[in-house]
């Protein structure tokens, strides 16, 4: 019973809470007990906020009983990657350097969820400073609930794994170069990278000012839309936040004849078995009424531009920790050195990279404007084995969520989506030969999250991959 409850969608839970058939306190207790039982095997919770959560749940119950229902998220338990400031609750950025850091403010998106009545139950594992792998010297390696010897992917490792394992109803993650879509694909959940500027980053750790985005991971595209509506919007504390409103419509509307661009090259990178699974996913879209056309992405130095920009901005943000030598406590030595080396590059190189990024953005805007959306595999393969200790980032490339070695190099569409700040979602679309989830990513024009969600909702109406649960048991 308890497990079934923990795997319900926001919509299902919300209806029962509104009808006073489900107590937010009992629901919160169910998630807390599940986390207490399971997390010793998964290692995806840094701080279980049980006391805080039960107090919030009691408050929600009082309000709902008295007729004050704040939103569809009222009384729903959630978790956040441990880089969102939470007032009075430890926020570590996934690093031993900040293991005792307790902020005196809430990040804007946490404040918005709290105002909507959602209940924070857990601060979730992340790779150190949101690097692309899953590693940290703060907590043991996180595990994938589908197979405990498999990677969760990173950097929103705990957000992906905890949502898939039913430790939280939904979670927030961040993406600089692939850190929401990657873990969503590897753990078999629905996770969205919104348009750059859609969600305020105030109170969230900086990795790269011009690339960081915040987004939800949940069971379904409908849940993702509901969460995004809550956390989106302008914020005077983050000057990059946009003013365009986002009102979620939980119905995909008219599909027949809607054109989707298939990034064929990315499908061809998968092995035969996985390619067959991805082709079946395309068939589902066709049967739903979409018209599919193959598209080719221009050949551009996506990885180099991404690495230079993210490392230069990361190196600049973390510079004070180099100056006072605290950086010595950082786990990923190669990434630390990359930051420093990038911060030594002449400023003209950073500006040149941003000029090439302008070209990439213009080209991708033009390409995506011809279609409702572009689709590609989130990753060509399912989650790989957890890498041995002491090998935090063996390839030495693609840092900052862009190419974590636990999930292989980021797909070109992921690179473009991040450099151009386009919205994208990863939804479960099948399994590989080892039973690990595969994800399909859907990317649309800037500020067109609804279109992304429309395609995802249409897919999830025809399939049940999003309803599958890992066989993992407490």
């Amino acid at each position: 019973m308890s497990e079934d409850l923990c795997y319900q969608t926001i919509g299902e839970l919300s209806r029962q809470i509104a009808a006073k058939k489900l107590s937010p306190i009992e629901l919160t207790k169910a998630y807390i007990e599940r986390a207490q039982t399971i997390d010793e095997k998964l290692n995806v919770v840094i701080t279980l906020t049980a006391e805080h959560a039960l107090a919030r749940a009691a408050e929600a119950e009082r309000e709902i009983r008295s007729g004050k229902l704040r939103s569809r998220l009222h009384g729903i338990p959630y978790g956040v990657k441990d880089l969102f400031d939470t007032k009075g609750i430890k926020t570590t950025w996934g690093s031993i350097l900040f293991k005792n850091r307790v902020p005196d403010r809430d990040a804007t998106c946490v404040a918005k969820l709290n105002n909507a009545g959602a209940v924070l139950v857990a601060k979730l594992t992340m790779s150190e400073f949101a690097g692309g792998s899953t590693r940290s010297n703060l907590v043991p390696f996180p595990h994938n609930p589908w197979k405990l010897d498999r990677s969760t992917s990173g950097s929103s490792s705990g957000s992906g794994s905890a949502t898939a394992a039913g430790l939280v109803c939904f979670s927030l993650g961040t993406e600089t170069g692939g850190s929401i879509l990657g873990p969503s694909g590897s753990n078999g959940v629905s996770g969205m990278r919104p348009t750059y500027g859609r969600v305020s980053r105030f109170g969230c750790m900086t990795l790269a000012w011009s690339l960081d985005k915040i987004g939800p991971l949940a069971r379904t595209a409908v849940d993702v839309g509901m969460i995004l509506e809550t956390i989106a919007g302008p914020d005077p504390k983050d000057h990059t936040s946009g003013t365009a409103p986002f009102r979620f419509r939980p119905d995909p509307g008219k599909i027949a004849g809607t054109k989707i661009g298939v990034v064929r090259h990315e499908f061809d990178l998968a092995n035969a078995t996985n390619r067959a699974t991805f082709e079946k996913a395309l068939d589902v879209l066709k049967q739903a009424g979409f018209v599919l056309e193959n598209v080719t992405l221009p050949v551009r130095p996506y990885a180099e531009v991404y690495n230079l920009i993210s490392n230069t901005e990361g190196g600049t943000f973390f510079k004070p920790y180099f100056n006072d030598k605290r950086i010595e406590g950082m786990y990923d030595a190669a990434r630390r050195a990359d930051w420093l080396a990038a911060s030594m590059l002449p400023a003209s190189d950073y500006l040149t990279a941003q000029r090439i990024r302008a070209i990439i953005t213009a080209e991708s805007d033009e390409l995506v404007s011809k279609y409702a959306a572009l689709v590609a595999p989130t990753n060509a393969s399912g989650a790989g084995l957890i890498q041995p200790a002491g090998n935090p980032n063996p390839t030495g490339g693609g840092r900052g969520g862009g190419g974590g070695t636990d999930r292989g190099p980021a797909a070109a569409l992921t690179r473009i989506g991040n450099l151009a700040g386009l919205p994208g979602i990863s939804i479960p679309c099948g399994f590989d030969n080892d039973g690990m989830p595969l994800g399909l990513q859907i990317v649309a024009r800037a500020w067109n999250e609804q279109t992304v969600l429309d395609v995802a909702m249409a897919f999830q109406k025809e399939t049940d991959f999003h309803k599958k649960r890992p066989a993992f048991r407490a």
Partner: protein
Amino acid sequence: MNSSRRKFAALLGTAVAYPTLWERAAAEYEQTGEVTSDTALALLDAQGERGIFSEPKHLDELRAALARKIRDHKIIRAFPVPEDVQPLIYFKR
């Protein structure tokens, strides 16, 4: 006053030397596939504190990172950018 002049001269020297040091690092990488410790230390000094990177183990990590960055830097510099393309930086108020 003398101290300030010395500091200013040092700053000026660094500003002039910095691009030259990068070119030296790139040339070393081109010829040998790596950046020497001397050049890595000179770059460190030019950017400020040496910090933990004065230790040989960490200096080697930095030399490897410099080699990676020089690879990226070469590709970025070789990419033809039309003259009317502005960098994607944005001041909003």
